[in-house]
């Protein structure tokens, strides 16, 4: 039987041959929850009578969504998680570490793994060739307790990114463009497999951006092959031992194949309030922005910060804009300091926020006022997302975001990139 990446990984973890449409109980390698979903996960574990996690090396609770805690109720939730990790044997990733998905990529997920997390963007680790998918607290509670879950083997849509990337066009633009074509439910219950010459040439940071947003098309996973780039990335993280090749079989069956000619793609934005409401930046009128956010699990990695710094260096942001920059993890933050990026940002007028989710989910650190407009590098622009249903969120790449912070309105990065 010829298999897709999903069929291969799930078969191996069920110890029998599976094809799309089958349902099986599978072993899972990495399990995690965060401070928004973790407390309910703990409750559910206790209800089932489980005190310990089954795999203490790869069961992690992250405190990243409201870190540091902005209010007492959340401090209580954090305290619960800190205490539960001690008693259950799970690992604690506290407020100084950063966003769960970034740390899962840096430290835990390996090619060929099954990764489940109580957060919808768990699919980020698909960039490493891991079958990584988000679930709710109860599923994750069972995952912690048994290191198992049940899976429906998804049908796969193959996406061939071919052609060349134009100046000013980045991984974020590719995935926004794709979601614009297939819609916010275009891949519901499906796996996306990213292929083609552009995918093969993308660095890991860019692959993470694309896999991260697979769920915005409804996908269960967003998978890349694990290849030489993957091996190099793992090596740079001191984890070369966990590398293995992951490729689909040549004759694997795909439900659909989508060809994307990247040469036609321009810098993109998502307009409020859905991610599939997409348009090229060059086609919109001047839209004034009040706040710009560069960061999150989508675009808070070192290569994103380098691109932003390249644009911001020697410039000052518009007086009418607040620019928030949030490194995705402690490691990203340290690299940004070493490379002098933080100094560039501060001199340009940016506000640096500690590694974590920052203002992305509307809890703290940059909640918008009524009628305000934010251009963000995050993955979602739903009404109310940044804490106020009367605000407007646009999504873009870090380059577009940095250019817009300088100009004060949503700006095509080609205007400032030389």
């Amino acid at each position: 039987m010829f298999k897709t990446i999903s069929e291969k990984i799930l078969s191996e973890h069920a110890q029998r041959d599976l094809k799309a449409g089958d349902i099986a109980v599978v072993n899972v390698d990495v399990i995690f929850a965060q401070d928004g979903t973790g407390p309910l996960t703990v409750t559910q574990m206790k209800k089932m009578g489980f005190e310990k996690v089954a795999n203490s090396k790869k069961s992690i609770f992250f405190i990243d969504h409201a870190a540091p805690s902005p209010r007492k109720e959340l401090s209580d939730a954090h305290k619960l998680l800190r205490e539960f990790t001690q008693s259950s044997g799970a690992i604690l990733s506290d407020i100084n570490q950063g966003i769960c998905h970034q740390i899962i990529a840096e430290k835990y997920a390996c090619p060929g793994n099954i990764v489940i997390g109580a957060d919808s963007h768990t699919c980020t680790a698909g960039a490493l060739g891991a079958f990584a998918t988000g679930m709710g607290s109860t599923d994750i509670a069972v995952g912690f307790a048994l290191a198992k879950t049940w899976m429906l083997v998804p049908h796969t849509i193959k996406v061939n990114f071919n052609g060349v990337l134009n100046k000013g066009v980045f991984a974020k633009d590719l995935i926004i463009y794709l979601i614009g074509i297939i819609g916010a439910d275009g891949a519901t219950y499906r796996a996306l497999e990213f292929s083609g010459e552009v995918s093969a040439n993308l660095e890991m940071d860019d692959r993470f951006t694309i896999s991260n947003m697979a769920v915005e098309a409804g996908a269960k996973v967003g998978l890349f092959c694990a290849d030489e780039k993957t091996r190099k990335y793992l090596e740079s993280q001191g984890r070369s031992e966990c590398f293995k090749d992951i490729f689909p079989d040549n004759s694997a069956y795909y439900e659909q194949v989508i060809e994307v000619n990247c040469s036609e793609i321009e810098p993109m934005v998502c307009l409020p309030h859905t991610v599939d409401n997409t348009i090229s930046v060059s086609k919109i009128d001047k839209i004034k922005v009040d706040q710009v956010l560069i960061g999150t699990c989508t675009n808070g990695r070192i290569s994103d910060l380098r691109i932003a710094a390249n644009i911001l260096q020697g410039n000052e942001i518009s007086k009418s804009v607040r620019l928030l920059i949030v490194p995705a993890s402690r490691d990203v933050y340290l690299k940004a300091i070493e490379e002098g990026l933080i100094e560039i940002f501060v001199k340009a007028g940016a506000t640096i926020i500690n590694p974590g989710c920052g203002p992305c989910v509307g809890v703290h650190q940059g909640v918008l006022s009524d009628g305000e407009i934010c251009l963000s590098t995050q993955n979602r622009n739903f009404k109310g997302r940044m804490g106020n249903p009367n605000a407007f969120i646009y999504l873009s790449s870090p380059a577009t975001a940095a250019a817009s912070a300088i100009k004060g309105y949503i700006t095509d990065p080609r205007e400032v990139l030389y």
Partner: protein
Amino acid sequence: MKFNNSNSNSKENFNKDNVIFNFNKNTGTENNGTEYTVTEDISTVETFSLNKNGDASILKGRVFKFGDDISTDLIAPGRYFHLRSNLPELAKHVLEDADPDFANKVKTGDFIAAGRNFGLGSSREHAPTIIKIAGIRAVLAQSFARIFFRNAINIGLVALICDTSKIDNLDILEIDLKQGHINNLTKNIQIQFNPLPDVMIKILNDGGLVNHITKYKGFNL
């Protein structure tokens, strides 16, 4: 089919069922320990019996109609993040950003009917849970986002995929879970719904995933 405890998810009963977890690591110093209110939602999970020999069970109620792409941010807004450990309180804001008055209007036994991609967005299980706490017995939609759908079944909220185009706000519906159809009594038409996968029927029958795992000490799917 059987529907036990048909009133068990009323708001009043729900509040009585809250439990206080003391997670003070057996130190016995309860006064110094942190009290953390955790909502006991399992008590509201109805027991389903979707096998063919069960008694017929029909849900009847009025419907609230919503459009496409009702996100988990609309259902359980992020600005109430701090209420996630107090689900009855969070439920007072259910769907607030889609219909500010919804929590006041909704009564136990009502339904939601929506368009495409209901529940897209975050994995927060709090979203289906507060819909259930608010009294909604079933959510009907053209399609559901994957994680929401799985969460709904895990916590015992009926989620059915069907054509909702012929359902309007405040129509009265009768859902026949055994026969697999919905009677729109207001419009006098019948609508079929897609059967759930066997695995999900099993989990619903056992009263949600927590009960399933507790009963079998693991998966038995």
